[in-house]
């Protein structure tokens, strides 16, 4: 054996974050140079330093915060309704094969319809306001949560269900006390996927419908009539940051609640 001890390389969280930040910094510097050197005109790609300043300004601008609030309200209500509908539905349809097969034709038809394609219909039915946004978010968010819940329920260990049966739990009792907690981690993953989709749909709807308020409406207002490109960028960046923040928070919650799931990784 060689006497040389190899020092294990630790790939912790910190180096990963550092590398990520380096990537972002390089991109920003590149964009800044391209703009400053006039390779791309400033009215198309404003200098990143200005965009970042505008972003910082936006985050504390009460008018813009009102738009953020409007977007998040529609997002949260829509996602909440989707969870309340999709989880029980997935739980029941996932548990009873016959019910699932009966519903699958309808599901297979509805699922591929892109929610963005439904925006004109939603505007016709619900108008340009919050109701329209909520309706679209519900529709778009329903599927990932529903399918993940169905898969989760199908994954329930049959021995766990038999155990509950030997303790004389009713069918509903087994559904609520065994199948639901078993399926919860997968359903939560569905919620996280839907949360991202829901944000996209909300902002798209605001843009296309010309809603009175929302991040999408803000971007539309600023960009129309030869608006300030830097502010349009700033609005877009905030939308992106919001998506990241939501994902980060949901992942943290999942880790905390589903710590017991560790064994399942093996």
């Amino acid at each position, binding site marked *: 054996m060689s006497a040389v001890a190899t020092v294990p390389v630790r790939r912790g969280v910190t180096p990963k974050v550092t590398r990520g930040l380096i990537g972002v910094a390089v991109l920003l510097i590149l964009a800044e140079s391209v703009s400053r050197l006039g390779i791309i005109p400033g009215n198309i790609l404003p200098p990143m330093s200005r965009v970042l300043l505008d972003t910082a300004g936006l985050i504390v601008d009460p008018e813009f915060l009102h738009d953020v609030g409007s977007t998040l309200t529609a997002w949260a209500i829509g996602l909440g309704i989707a969870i309340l509908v999709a989880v029980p539905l997935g739980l029941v349809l996932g548990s009873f094969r016959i019910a699932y097969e009966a519903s699958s034709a309808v599901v297979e038809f509805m699922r591929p319809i892109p929610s963005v394609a439904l925006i004109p219909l939603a505007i016709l039915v619900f108008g340009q306001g919050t109701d329209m946004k909520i309706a679209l978010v519900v529709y778009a968010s329903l599927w990932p949560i529903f399918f993940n819940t169905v898969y989760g329920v199908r994954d329930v260990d049959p*021995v*766990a269900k*038999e155990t509950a049966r*030997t*303790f*004389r739990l009713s069918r509903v009792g087994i559904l609520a006390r*065994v199948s639901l*907690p*078993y399926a919860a981690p997968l359903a939560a993953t569905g919620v996280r996927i839907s949360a991202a989709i829901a944000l996209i749909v909300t902002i798209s709807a605001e843009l296309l419908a010309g809603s009175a308020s929302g991040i999408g409406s803000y971007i539309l207002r600023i960009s129309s009539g030869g608006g300030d490109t830097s502010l349009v960028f700033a609005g877009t960046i905030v939308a992106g940051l919001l998506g990241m923040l939501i994902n980060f928070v949901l992942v943290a919650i999942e880790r905390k609640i589903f710590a017991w799931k*560790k064994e399942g990784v093996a």
Partner: protein
Amino acid sequence: MLNIEHLTHTYGTGAKAHLALKDITFAVEPGELVSIVGPSGCGKTTLLRTMAGLMRPTGGDLTFLGNEITSVPEGLAMVFQDYRGSLFPWLSVESNVRFPLKRLGLSKADLDARVSESLVAVGLTGFEDRFPFQLSGGMQQRVAIARALAYRPKILLMDEPFASVDAQTREDLEDLVLSVKKKFNMTILFVTHDIDESVYLADRVVVLSKPPTFVVTTLDIPLSDNRDQIETKEDPEFIRLRGEVARLIRHPKSDDVTIPVADVA
């Protein structure tokens, strides 16, 4: 207490019909530990599932406390071989033990007393807040046993409960079963494919044949109640009994044994 008379079970129908259990008759009396032993694939699990009311056999009479078993009866608990699947991974040890008690409408004090008493009985005090994935296999099976005890069943069915743990742990758990039986005066039906285990634990051993399965014989085990992993297994009587069980499993003496086709050829 538990009476099984001429139980038969056929899987499938028509040409694909497969007779798994041919004719099973035996009884379990209060306070007894009866073990069922037989070659692998002899339908032990099917038999236990019918007794637990988890499935209906195609023929025969099954009664528990005088009532026909049509679904899971009140007063019965089961410990499964697959403790990993049987424990609820999202619940702590204590919550797992508490799980079946919720619908019984006990007072809080009663509930707490039952949970802690059961955990003491299986030697798991101090592990209340752990989760199943943090415990060894043997400890997980202890949790499953504690959960069954807290339920205070009149009969405890155990389906090859120690088939997936190592030999040392297995001996400890066998002694745990004996101590629990004594402490709670529990009636236990213990299914195993391990001949030593069946003799060591039981007051009576029901020996099953290869499928289509029938009861080869029922043997009384006249060993003392104070059993010890080393001394009991050295006892000439134990050695004689385990030999007899082994012989019965290999060469069942019965007129209606169908000779396997392979042997004829």
